[in-house]
């Protein structure tokens, strides 16, 4: 043989575009010119010439290919149509499996795309950062996005290199009054003028420069303006916030998109914030709130690291020395805000892990559906061998056959795809409602989905079509017409098929186990003993900070018949209202330890059923009593180094700067969601200015039933809300409210409902994951069912002969089942370690978690094998019971 000197890419190109007969000569022709050019112009120019020639040749060759395909296309279409009709079960399984898989993929893609699109609409997206801080006290790392109020000005004065700095403050739920009509408004944002320079908003009325010029100007979103003022012009209207602050509407902006980390309905000037309104000092470095954030805008391509030394300098200038090596400022990119729940966010956060889980499930579903297709089509190979042989005899090239089979896959995929798009569009509404993240996803509204859709489409065609077309087109005519095909090519295809079945089954195992683990963990969350009463407690936020007035309000509630007890406190046992500080033990040199102050009155322990393990709870506060008394939790006792709770009673600790005696120890309860560990708590009745909530323990008339059930879990007892006692109590509270706080509209919250909402987002996400997982397993089952029916058909003759020779029906079932069971067991052994690795990793992200246990793996295995047995036995019993005469005569 002569060695060809043609570069590889040219060979690939030529044989890719032309039939083998043509490419033989073409190859030689090109080589001749190439060699000639190489001699006269040098190798570089020759290559250059060749590449240009190849590129110029693409259009005519492609057009030529298409023209040729069209003439054969009608024939292919006819054959594909006949195949679909002839093998109804097979086609049904393929199209259903593929389309369910595609629906899942499309929905997952849309969901992930939405989550990844957060904040991208700001043109400065890449250059906006939030100033956050990390602290490390004795190894306990805390993340804080709350900015002290002087921070923004300090940054403006001391930090060159920042293009812009803005300070924002979110108000908690508060009353907004318009023309004597009161609204409870959630997202009220205070921001200074640079806010509008850093972030992008579209103004409908008013303009950026003048809109926030006065301290009394307010900007509304379109929807809010409509809600308050209807269709009349809102300009110049007066807005009263919390009955204290007066604003004049100066502008309307278009509603910010749903996928923003900074949602708001009303925008107010930052300078109008008063200490009275928010209850925080505005000039102190050691006071911060997670509602107060500072954002900075950097010039493009600035290295964030450059700012570390400057932050260090600033820290030394403004913070006391003891914090210098404990607290660190950092810049958090806006692009990370939605995906990091360590730092407080104003809308739910979703971790990248969760997004990856979704992507992985989407991919797994697509692969499983693809594997189904590959398995079923190669299993069919025997049936189509004759067709392939006939085509080859009549002069078909292998390339044409490959094209034909890929074309067939394309037809299946196209059908499945059309079905999938239809289904996805129908389902997406439910998914929206279910997720309730404010997104209104729709295929029609998102043209950007076309590209990934095309990608998924082409990927699934290639994934599913490539291998079968190679296998099917490989038959040589002579062999195809002889009977030998059954043995030879059949087994070869089958071994890979076995591999794919094992793979598919292993993926299903991983998915089933993950579902078990996830739901066990979620159940654990919902049912875990929290350590306090949560049912039949109604909480009301106090609108004013006047202690005596609030006290008489609380006392007036106590006199109502259904009410058992009333307590005033900073918040409920699990609540957003926090006062973080640190404590030390006098005389003992331990690092100061973070602690939360729970300001509460003497009824708190009774209302929430807190259990005392030592000492007693707080007494009634007496005016003029200056001695500080603490009630602490077990966690504090341990951290402070006491041996047991009894020892601690009578000892002194310094909380912040206040020294006081420990008079009692309560059993640990969960002050946060179960993601976080229980931290040290201190109860005191000294800080009455913090009393912001009145909680009412009442009798709904169903108490006896409740205490028996899971009364301590997060699962709310909705039936309670409907009893007449509940309604009466609520009405009575509202009546009292109107008496004491006539200027404010009444709002209340059931404590259990609040607790449920802590896990709402997660609960929903995991339910969706569960549904997708089930679908994936279902698609896998479909494929298995189809594959088994083919195997049985293939073995029809064998079964018949065995029966004639005296085999029992049982042994025949066993023969068919054995192979699949073996595959199933191998798949379990492969899938379990993978599932163990991933789920173990996932559970680490929870402070309180279930342990992985053997039953999850075992039952997943049993479920899997049961599915195999079920689908196999159905077919194999049919085969085993059939009359041997029929089966031997088969073919």
């Amino acid at each position, binding site marked *: *043989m*002569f*060695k*060809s*000197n*043609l570069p590889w890419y040219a060979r690939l190109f030529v044989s890719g*575009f*032309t039939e083998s007969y*043509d490419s*033989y*000569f*073409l*190859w*030689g*022709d*090109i*080589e*001749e*010119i190439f*060699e000639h050019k190489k001699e006269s112009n040098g190798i570089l120019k020759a290559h250059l010439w060749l590449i240009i*020639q*190849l590129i*110029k*040749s*693409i*259009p*005519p*060759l492609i*057009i*030529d290919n298409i023209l040729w395909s069209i003439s054969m296309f009608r024939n292919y279409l006819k054959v594909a149509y006949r195949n679909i009709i002839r093998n109804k079960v097979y086609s049904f399984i393929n199209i259903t499996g593929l389309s369910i898989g595609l629906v899942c993929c499309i929905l997952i893609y849309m969901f992930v795309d939405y989550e990844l699109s957060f904040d991208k609409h700001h043109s400065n997206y890449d250059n906006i950062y939030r100033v956050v801080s990390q602290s490390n006290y004795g190894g306990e790392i805390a993340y804080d996005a709350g900015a002290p109020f002087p921070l923004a000005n300090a940054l403006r004065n001391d930090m060159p290199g920042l293009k812009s700095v803005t300070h924002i403050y979110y108000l908690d739920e508060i009353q907004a009054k318009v023309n004597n009509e009161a609204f409870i408004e959630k997202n009220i944002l205070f921001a200074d003028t640079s806010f509008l320079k850093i972030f992008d908003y579209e103004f409908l009325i008013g303009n950026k420069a003048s809109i926030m010029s006065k301290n009394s100007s307010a900007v509304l979103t379109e929807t809010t303006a409509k809600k308050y003022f209807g269709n009349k012009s809102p300009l110049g209207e007066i807005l009263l916030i919390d009955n204290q602050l007066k604003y004049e509407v100066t502008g309307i902006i278009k509603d910010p998109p749903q996928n923003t980390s900074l949602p708001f309905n009303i925008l107010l000037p930052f300078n109008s914030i008063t200490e009275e309104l928010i209850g925080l000092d505005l000039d102190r470095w050691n006071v911060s709130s997670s509602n107060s954030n500072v954002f900075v805008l950097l010039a493009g391509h600035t290295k964030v690291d450059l700012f570390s030394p400057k932050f260090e300098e600033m820290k030394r200038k403004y913070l006391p020395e003891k914090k210098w090596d404990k607290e660190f400022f950092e810049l958090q990119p806006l692009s990370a805000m939605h995906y990091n729940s360590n730092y407080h966010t104003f809308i739910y956060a979703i971790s990248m892990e969760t997004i990856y889980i979704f992507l992985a499930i989407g991919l797994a579903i697509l692969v499983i559906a693809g594997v189904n297709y590959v398995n079923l089509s190669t299993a069919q190979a025997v049936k189509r061998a004759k067709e392939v042989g006939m085509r080859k005899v009549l002069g078909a090239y292998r390339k044409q056959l490959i094209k034909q089979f890929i074309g067939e896959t394309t037809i299946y995929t196209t059908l499945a795809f059309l079905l999938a798009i239809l289904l996805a569009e129908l389902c997406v509404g439910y998914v929206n409602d279910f997720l309730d993240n404010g997104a209104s996803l729709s295929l029609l509204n998102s043209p950007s989905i076309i590209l990934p859709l095309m990608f998924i489409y082409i990927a699934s065609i290639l994934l599913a079509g490539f291998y079968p077309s190679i296998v099917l087109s490989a038959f040589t005519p002579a062999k195809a017409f002889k009977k030998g095909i059954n043995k030879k090519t059949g087994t070869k295809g089958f071994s890979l098929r076995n591999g794919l079945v094992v793979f598919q089954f292993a993926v299903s195992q991983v998915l089933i186990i993950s579902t078990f683990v996830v739901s066990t963990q979620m159940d654990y969350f919902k049912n875990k003993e929290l350590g306090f009463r949560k049912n039949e407690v109604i909480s009301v936020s106090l609108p004013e900070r006047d202690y005596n007035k609030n006290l008489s309000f609380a006392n007036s509630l106590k006199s109502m018949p259904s009410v058992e007890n009333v307590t005033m406190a900073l918040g409920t046992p699990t609540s957003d209202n926090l006062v973080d500080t640190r404590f030390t033990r006098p005389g003992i040199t331990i690092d100061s330890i973070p602690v939360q102050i729970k300001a509460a009155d003497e009824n708190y322990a009774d209302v929430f059923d807190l259990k005392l393990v030592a000492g007693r709870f707080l007494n009634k506060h007496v005016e003029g009593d200056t001695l500080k008394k603490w009630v602490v939790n077990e966690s504090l006792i341990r951290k402070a180094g006491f041996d047991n709770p009894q020892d601690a009673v009578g000892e002194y600790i310094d909380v912040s700067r206040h020294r006081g005696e420990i008079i009692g120890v309560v059993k640990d309860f969960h002050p946060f969601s179960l993601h976080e560990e229980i931290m040290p708590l201190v109860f005191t009745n000294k800080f009455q200015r913090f009393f912001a909530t009145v909680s009412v323990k009442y009798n709904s008339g169903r108490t006896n039933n409740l205490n028996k059930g899971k009364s301590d879990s997060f699962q709310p007892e909705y039936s309670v809300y409907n009893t007449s006692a509940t309604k009466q109590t609520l009405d009575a509270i509202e009546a009292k409210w109107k008496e004491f706080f006539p200027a404010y509209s009444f709002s209340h919250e059931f404590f259990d409902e609040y607790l449920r909402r802590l896990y709402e987002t997660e609960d929903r996400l995991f339910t969706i994951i569960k549904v997708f997982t089930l679908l994936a397993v279902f698609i896998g089952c479909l494929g298995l069912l189809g594959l088994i029916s083919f195997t049985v058909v293939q073995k029809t003759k064998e079964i018949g002969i065995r029966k004639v020779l005296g085999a029992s029906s049982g042994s025949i079932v066993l023969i068919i089942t054995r192979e699949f069971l073996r595959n199933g067991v191998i798949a379990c052994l492969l899938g379990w370690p993978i599932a163990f690795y991933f789920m173990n990793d996932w559970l680490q992200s929870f402070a309180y978690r279930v342990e992985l246990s053997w039953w999850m793996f075992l039952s997943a295995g049993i479920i899997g094998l049961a599915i195999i047995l079920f689908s196999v036995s159905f077919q194999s019993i049919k085969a085993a019971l059939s009359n041997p005469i029929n089966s031997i005569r088969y073919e």
Partner: protein
Amino acid sequence: MKILTRLEEFVLLSILNLRDNAYLVTIQKYLEENTNNNLSFGTLHVLLKRLEQAELLVHFIGEATSKRGGRAIKYYKLSRQGIEALRDIQSVSESMWANFSNLT
């Protein structure tokens, strides 16, 4: 009678002129030298294929040589219909051009 395109006409004429040495490389070169038409081999390949399908051309295979990676050459020759087609074209253009010098 189907009228050939200019390019097809040129290709057929090149093959005629090249006599026994008409294959893709020489045709490409001939066209470039005489009509200044720099065709890529892909275009030319498809063109030749079409003309052969229209039975205006026939091909014959040459001997394999040590050049060209040992591959034989596919030579082209005009068929009877090919020559007919050229004649038709010639007569059509002659009648169309007949009065050219009188009118200008």
